[in-house]
């Protein structure tokens, strides 16, 4: 690969997320009047909050070169659990959901790491289980949180200054994830595993622990996102997660994270989330057919992955 090509590629990857955000903002401010209004921006933040957490956690699995195709199902599962049991338990349900996330994520991680199975198969398998729980508890569509419990969920609609509280929560989570990514040895190990698993292993790193920790974090984030959706929609929605996996993966890709693993950042993923949320919000404002949403996100994903592809830097056989 010539030096010029390599330079252009690195440049693209580094700044793609910013370029796309700016591009989206510009395009939609032209075609959708009121796009840059405070109300619209607040709406974007509101919509993006749970997705920020979801995609942020998912990033870690992708850093190891794996994927969680069942992330959306985890979200549905905890959304249902939260929606149904909040009436009995109050806000403590969120902590329980975090615990559930630990269990779900660690299960995925252990099967992947210890049995040495490809993560896409493992997560496709466990996805059935999370969906099963959601559908068993909620077989007839959404269940609304009863009115008398509404006061508990009120805090999520509150704004601190101009920013929705859930968005601030998401920012906090992203911050914590960033600290984990940059400043803990698990974080560094996770990147190393994605960059060259064999060399990392031979360097004496506990790669099983690194892999499992990535899945655990993602599980917690997915669970937390699910709980947040229950708060946001004030109901248990068993199908909430159906298209979320795609959106989350597309956000991570748009943020310049390589699907082959080894590099990326939750900060850039966050910008990817905001960009995609802006796109869907803008399309809504333009009155576009909502059925186009999945197609557009799918195309964004492919485009982002193509631009991101840096496999010339590694001697790999791509399968």
């Amino acid at each position, binding site marked *: 690969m010539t030096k010029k090509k390599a330079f252009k590629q690195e440049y693209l990857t580094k700044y793609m997320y910013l370029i796309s955000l700016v591009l989206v903002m510009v395009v939609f401010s032209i075609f959708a009047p009121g796009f840059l209004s405070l109300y619209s921006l607040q709406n974007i933040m509101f919509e993006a909050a749970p997705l920020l957490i979801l995609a942020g956690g998912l990033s870690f699995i992708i850093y190891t070169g794996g994927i969680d195709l069942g992330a959306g199902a985890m979200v549905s599962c905890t959304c249902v659990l939260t929606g149904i049991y909040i009436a009995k338990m109050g806000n403590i349900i969120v902590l329980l959901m975090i615990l559930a996330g630990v269990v779900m994520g660690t299960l995925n991680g252990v099967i992947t790491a210890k049995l040495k199975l490809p993560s896409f198969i493992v997560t496709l398998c466990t996805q059935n289980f999370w969906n099963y729980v959601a559908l068993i508890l909620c077989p007839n569509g959404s269940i609304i949180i009863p009115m008398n419990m509404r006061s508990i969920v009120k805090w999520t609609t509150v704004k601190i200054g101009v920013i929705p509280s859930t968005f601030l929560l998401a920012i906090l989570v992203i911050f914590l994830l960033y600290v984990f990514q940059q*400043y*803990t*040895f698990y974080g*560094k190990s996770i990147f190393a595993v994605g960059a*060259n698993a*064999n060399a990392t292993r*031979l*360097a004496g790193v506990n790669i099983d622990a690194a892999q499992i920790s990535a899945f655990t974090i993602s599980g917690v984030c997915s669970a937390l996102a699910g709980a947040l959706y229950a708060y946001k929609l004030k109901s248990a929605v068993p199908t909430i997660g159906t298209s979320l996996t795609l959106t989350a993966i597309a956000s991570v890709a748009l943020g310049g994270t390589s699907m082959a693993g080894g590099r990326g950042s939750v900060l850039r993923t966050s910008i990817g989330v905001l960009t995609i949320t802006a796109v869907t919000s803008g399309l809504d404002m333009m009155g576009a057919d909502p059925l186009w949403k999945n197609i557009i996100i799918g195309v964004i994903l492919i485009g982002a992955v193509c631009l991101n592809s840096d496999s010339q830097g590694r001697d790999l056989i791509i399968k």
Partner: protein
Amino acid sequence: MGELLFEAKGIGKDYGATTVLHDIDMKISSGEIIGLIGENGAGKSTLMKIISGVEKQSFGTMTLRGKPYSANTILEANHHGIGMVFQEQSLVGNLTVAQNIYLNREKKYSTAGFVSWRKMNVDAKKAIARLGLDLDTSKKVRDLDFATRQMIEIAKVLDVVEETASGKAIILLDEPTTVLSNEEIDKLFENMRNVAARGNAIIFISHRLDEVLKITDRIYVFKDGAETAEMPTKGADINILYEKMVGRSTTGEFYVEHKQTVPTDEVVMSVKDLSVFGSFNHISFDLHKGEVLGLCGVEGSGKESICAVLVGDEAPTSGEIVINGKNQNFANPYQARKKGILGVPKERRSEGMIGILSLEDNILISHLDGLTKRGLLNGKKTRAIADEWIKKAGIKCTSAEERINQLSGGNAQKVIFARALESGCRILILNHPTRGVDVGSKEEIYSLVRDMTAAGNSIILLGDTLDECIGLSSRCIVLRDGLITGSFECQVGNKPSQKNIVEKMM
């Protein structure tokens, strides 16, 4: 001997700043079996790669049957009538014998896209009959034993090259006898003679000198990338062969011998009757503090496997590794590191470097869990550590942030050395530490090795060349076919001759 088939003049090959082949001349005539011998790293494989189309030479020319010859791919070389049987199995296990032989050549057996296996089997039987083999060619290759597979590989290459150059082909065999029993070797030699009798030529690489003396007509000896001797096999003196293979070319200064430490009596690791089924048996030795213990042996002697067991990459079948008075069992390299053992792997690109990560990350990866304070790493501190290693090891780079895959081979290797030193492990397993490294960096690495032992670490070394092994080690253990055949003290001023060691190796 017949007409001149192939001639190479002044062949040289450089990898960046390192010269691996230098001014090689070779002549091969029809009907000849040429032997090619030399140590690991002497350049034999590189020359074969150039002839067989895997690599391109940096200097020199080749002529084949009077016309200039060059090949950019294995397939091109095949079309010219040159084929190589590689050491690694290149047959496809889930296909039949016939399908393997005619892989990508099915056209002449197919009508309207559908292949007639029956017709192909008929020809396949003829192809393997040339090597005296008679078996059902519709059997899957994975159901055959190694020796038969080896024969079929040769039959395949033979069939491919004889298609275009019957009676004038050149077959390259790289260590074909390592998986064969004595009877099978005899059969192979008989077949080789038949092939040569038809006018083809064979280049036979082997580290087993007795075999080379048995089957070849002429012998070329390589050492350090140059041709040191060429002689007819008849009347060749095995001692002269040894001498030409290994004679000392570098001085003690090169190996920084003045810094070689004398090991103390303290035993840091004791290996007792260690065995891996099928690789090595009954290996026992003590490793002392400050010692460099060299493991000498050819490929297949078991030294690589011993390395793998010591770093935790492979599980032993039986035996003990005693550290601090207790038998240790490592299930993986992580556990080995916790007990104080870390390795510098052989394949730098795939096993050593974490390519797209920075120098800093690469240096610190084996010590991260020891550097955390309340769970967090301090970016400034880790950067300072990396910078210090860059200075200490003389790593040429723009900064600690630079990606390791932008560095030259020698500098990348120094990074991995820095990693090993930073890890705090007292027992280091160095596997071909100067492979693919330029001469200047080699000396710096040798100096690092001396610093390691001076600081009280103990090293087990698999040297790139025998010379290096002797020069660096305080003691050498010789391995052959999985067993220890000798042990030599290597103190400064009392280094054993290479000949002594080579005799035990082969």
